[in-house]
């Protein structure tokens, strides 16, 4: 059995009166793809924000390997090897694609001489180009990131996160807003990243994308984990079908 790389135990996060996460626990095997799915507003992005230190959990514990992430700032968590993308892409728009990716290298280290020396050492450029090639964007290296089409911007953001050589990669709806063709390509990139040994947790609103990629799936609804298992078992779970289909068809039967 593979080792657990990541554990969240009993995580609760409240915003005023709203409980966005209620006692959520997940465990992720090293080298696997783990999907968190659920309807809009289920708390998926909040889970990522808690894991990456943007918000602090009100209760619960979060572990990466042997070390706790609870209470650490975002950049410290990143330095431990947690990379992420955002549901709405957050690139350094005025900077070139190459500079975006180079900023991911080294997890925020300023190497000796970084005060004086430029960021584009041969080593850094080679690594950045290699990462850009992995997402199929090496030709756009000198383009200003903000001027790329949306689908390409998403790939730059993925490349920037990959450049960190993360242990855990968090992808927030990586396929949102992409064409079917782009989504299929991106899914393939995510698989390749996993094959290099990176553990991936992805959030998807679209159940089919997640089911195709993931080794293991957890389902959130109203901040609670309502199901978990392999894609096949989760797909057949009546609670999941209810969460996804019950609303809209039979009205607010849930409420």
């Amino acid at each position: 059995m593979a080792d657990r790389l990541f554990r969240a135990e009993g995580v609760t996060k409240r915003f005023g009166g709203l409980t966005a996460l209620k006692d959520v626990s997940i465990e992720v095997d090293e080298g696997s793809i783990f999907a968190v799915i659920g309807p809009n507003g289920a708390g998926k992005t909040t889970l990522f924000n808690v894991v990456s230190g943007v918000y602090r959990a009100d209760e619960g514990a979060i572990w990466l390997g042997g070390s706790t992430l609870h209470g650490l700032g975002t950049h410290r968590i990143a330095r431990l090897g947690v990379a992420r993308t955002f549901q709405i892409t957050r690139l350094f728009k005025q900077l070139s694609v190459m500079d975006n990716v180079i900023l991911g290298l080294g997890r925020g280290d300023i190497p000796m001489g970084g005060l004086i020396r430029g960021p584009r050492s041969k080593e850094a450029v080679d690594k950045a180009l290699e990462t850009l090639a992995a997402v199929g964007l090496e030709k756009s290296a000198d383009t200003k990131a903000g001027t790329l089409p949306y689908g390409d911007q998403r790939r730059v953001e993925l490349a920037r996160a990959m450049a960190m050589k993360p242990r855990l990669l968090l992808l927030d709806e990586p396929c949102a807003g992409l064409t079917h063709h782009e989504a299929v390509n991106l899914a393939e990139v995510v698989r390749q990243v996993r094959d290099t040994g990176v553990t991936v947790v992805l959030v998807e609103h679209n159940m089919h994308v997640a089911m195709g990629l993931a080794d293991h799936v957890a389902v959130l609804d109203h901040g609670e984990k309502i199901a978990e298992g392999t894609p096949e078992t989760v797909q057949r779970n009546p609670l999941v079908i209810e969460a996804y289909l019950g609303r809209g068809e039979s009205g607010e039967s849930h409420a």
Partner: protein
Amino acid sequence: MLYLVTVSTMVCIYIILASGLNIITGYAGQPNLGHAAFFGIGAYASALLTTKVGLSFWAAMPLAVVIAASVGFVLGIISLRLREDFLAITTIGVNFVVVSVFLYFDYFGRALGLGGIPRPSIFGHVLNKPEYLVLVVFLVAAVLLVCWVFSRSRLGLMVSAVREDELAAHSLGLNVTALKLAAFVFGTALAGLGGSVYAHFMTFISPYDFAFPVSITVMCMVVLGGAGTFWGPVVGAIILASAPEIMRFIQQYRMLIYGGLLAVLMIFQPAGLLGADSVFVRGGARLVARVRGRVVQSG
């Protein structure tokens, strides 16, 4: 002749000030509307160290830089966690507080200011105004060299990333607070240098030389030339620091004109003359392309 020397020296001083503000506001994206406070701290420190402590200019100048940067460091630690709009207001407040301190303590000469500030001397020879200008030009060259290295360093790229998107920078492992603080200390150090150079040029300083309108003037220079570009603050300082001297008759309306200029720029040309989306840069690029095209055709 002497008039030209005076204007040129003032242009140089403004280049130093604007380059410093450009590090803070242009590269790191942190609004600082109190830059003149650090200009004043540098000037008063240098003036006091020479007139009351008895140091030479050569010792007082670097100390003035360190003192201005230290105040910048402390204020930065306190205020850089603020949201940007609060930071803008806080820095305005700092400007008023610092001017008040100069005004209300005898040690700082109150409204009369400080006089008798010596010009620097080399081997016993006291520099006259033209000679001092030569020294100032060397200092400007050194400042621009440091800024150029910064703008092309990994540190400079990281600071720009903070300006572009703080949360994204955080999640790449960049220590955003430290990077902002580094930019703030660097920028206020340059303001301190500008202050020292100013004090020993004028030989007499008073609190209002460092009042809030001066902060706005420097901000105008940065925005006009192009915030976040290397040459922007230089171009902005040259245009605005020489213009009011040429057009003396509009002197009284200077703040009105600067304020209007800032508003017009923000609406029509937010990137400034040398900024990325500037009509001048695009026009220049088109011109270069056309000339090249012609050379290729005829060649």
